[in-house]
């Protein structure tokens, strides 16, 4: 029964990949829509193989030192439960990796991006995961609470994304030379909304499946998850109104996701009102995070750093603050802060090194000519909407004419 629940939950988490693809693609321009979809599709595929080969062993293998797993690599003869666990955890690893895709959209070389995703799934994510989720991991031994991965999954993805966008620089023309900010609206808000729905749906598997058992606790976890997502959307809505900003689709979708990210750490250890509060603050944190990054001239196309990073930090702290039966325990909060800080230092620095190396070797960023043409054409040789958008500079029939650069 447990295996069935975990396997179904893994399949639900898989659907989050589709949610990310839709959300990120909708927030990108039409000339980069295929590229964003492809990145989400292929990081899952390439990453799955690597996580099976290396990542799972590093994360969940025997870990006598508390720092790194040492077996279960390329698992071939595991029992049924091990297979279910690997399947479920593989989807989590893919989620961490694919968070990066949206932030770095519209100016990243496809192959370099995939190599980065490999680095995340094979090394960066499992190493931190072994500290926090392996039963002998040193953070876990300290009492670090991160039930389904506000930090382990979401912040890890977000700090990688932050390093990526810092190495990459903003999209061409995103910020003018005199400091002006040029909005680059996404090409399809329906996709954004559907992506938001799909992610929210998948989150029930993400948090619910993390029980790793088909028990009665699933109900409260799913309720907390849903209420936090709803409160996050409302938090974003009220923030937009309070700041006299238009209530954009991206704001409320990101607000709901911020709420969901925030509750991920404490969804199994909070009462419902605190889950609502956690989600609500998560939505607000997301909004201000997006604006702060813009002020810093960091170009995060989908707001991934704010949604998954800043809200992940808040949610992890909230899991300590609102711990059922041990509320506002300072010692627990300190442990949570240590976990958050360690995650940032390890993930951000290693990702910065990885993307820096990629940038200096094979190149991470496309040329300005490729940005002009759009990555659908330059990276994949196709056009996302060949029968529509006939006013665009590049059409399907031009692809064959264009010289390779």
């Amino acid at each position, binding site marked *: 029964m447990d295996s069935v629940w975990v396997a179904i939950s893994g399949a639900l988490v898989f659907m989050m990949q589709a949610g990310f693809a839709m959300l990120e693609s909708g927030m990108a*321009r039409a000339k980069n829509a295929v590229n964003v979809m492809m990145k989400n599709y292929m990081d899952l595929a390439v990453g799955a193989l690597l996580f099976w080969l290396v990542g799972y062993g590093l994360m969940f293998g025997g870990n006598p030192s508390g720092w790194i797993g040492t077996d279960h690599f390329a698992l071939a003869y595991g029992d049924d439960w091990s297979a279910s666990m690997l399947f479920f955890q593989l989807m989590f690893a893919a989620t961490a990796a694919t968070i990066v895709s949206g932030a770095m959209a519209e100016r990243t070389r496809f192959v370099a991006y995939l190599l980065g995703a490999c680095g995340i799934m094979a090394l960066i994510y499992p190493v931190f995961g072994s500290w926090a989720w392996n039963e002998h991991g040193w953070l876990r031994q300290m009492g670090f609470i991160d039930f389904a991965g506000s930090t382990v999954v979401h912040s890890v993805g977000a700090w990688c994304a932050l390093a990526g966008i810092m190495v990459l620089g903003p999209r061409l*023309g995103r910020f003018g*030379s005199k400091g002006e900010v*040029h*909005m*680059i609206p996404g090409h399809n808000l329906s996709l954004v909304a559907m992506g938001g729905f799909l992610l929210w749906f998948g989150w029930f598997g993400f948090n619910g499946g993390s029980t790793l058992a088909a028990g009665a606790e699933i109900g409260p976890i799913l309720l907390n998850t849903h209420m936090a997502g709803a409160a996050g959307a409302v938090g974003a809505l009220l923030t937009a109104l309070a700041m006299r900003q238009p209530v954009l689709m991206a704001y409320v979708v990101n607000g709901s996701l911020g709420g969901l990210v925030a509750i991920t750490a404490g969804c199994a250890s909070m009462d419902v009102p605190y889950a609502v509060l956690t989600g609500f603050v998560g939505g607000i944190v997301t909004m201000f995070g997006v604006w702060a990054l813009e002020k810093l001239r960091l170009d995060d196309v989908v707001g991934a750093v704010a949604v998954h990073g800043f809200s992940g930090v808040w949610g992890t702290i909230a899991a300590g603050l609102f711990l059922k039966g041990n509320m506002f325990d300072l010692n627990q909060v300190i442990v949570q802060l240590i976990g958050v800080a360690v995650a940032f230092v390890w993930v951000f620095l290693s990702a910065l090194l990885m993307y820096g190396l990629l940038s200096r070797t094979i190149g991470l960023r496309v040329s*300005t000519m490729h940005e*002009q*043409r759009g990555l659908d054409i330059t990276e994949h040789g196709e056009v996302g909407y060949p029968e529509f958008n006939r006013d665009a500079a590049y059409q399907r029939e031009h692809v064959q*004419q264009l010289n390779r650069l």
Partner: protein
Amino acid sequence: MDIVLRRRAILTGLRPFLSDEELLPAVALWEREYAGQPVFALSGFIAKCCTRPALKAQRGQMLRAVIGAMELPERQLLPDPGAREGDAATAQRTTSLSADDKTSMFAVLLQAMLLLIEPALQGAVRNRLLQQLDKQKFEGVRQQVLQEWLAGHNATLTHSYSLDLLRSFINQAYVAMCEALGPVKADQLLAQAIRQAEIQGHHLSFRVHDLL
């Protein structure tokens, strides 16, 4: 201040002192040697312009006149000596037969892009392309011709250039438009310019998309 406005200021400042025959070469000299230099270098420029004893006596006045013209509002400046009249088709019509079809198509497309943006931004785009040209190393006359054409001095592009160079100029113009207007508007204008260039350059044997 962009290069077109500064050129007009130089012209306006020197106009009372120089004859018609002296004026345009002086502006060309400024553009070639002094446009990228700070204002105090104008003293050296004026010294070079004073080729007659009568002018040498007026050197100080000339310098003050030129510096004063730099402060004038745009409407008080004389028209740009390199300003182009007419539409993008003019560029193609005035392109010499010695320029090949790809260079002609380039002229049509770039002119179409420039005509879609405001004069101030046109100046910024031209500036960027001139800076780009400075980095290129090729034979002097061809460089001079392209420089004059890009600066808007000359309506005629009489030489042919490599596809890579022309493509990089279109791309740099697009980059300048992205930085000034944002990429969404720049994409729209590029698409519009392409459509115009396809019509205006329909008789050329070179496809506009090969420049892109």
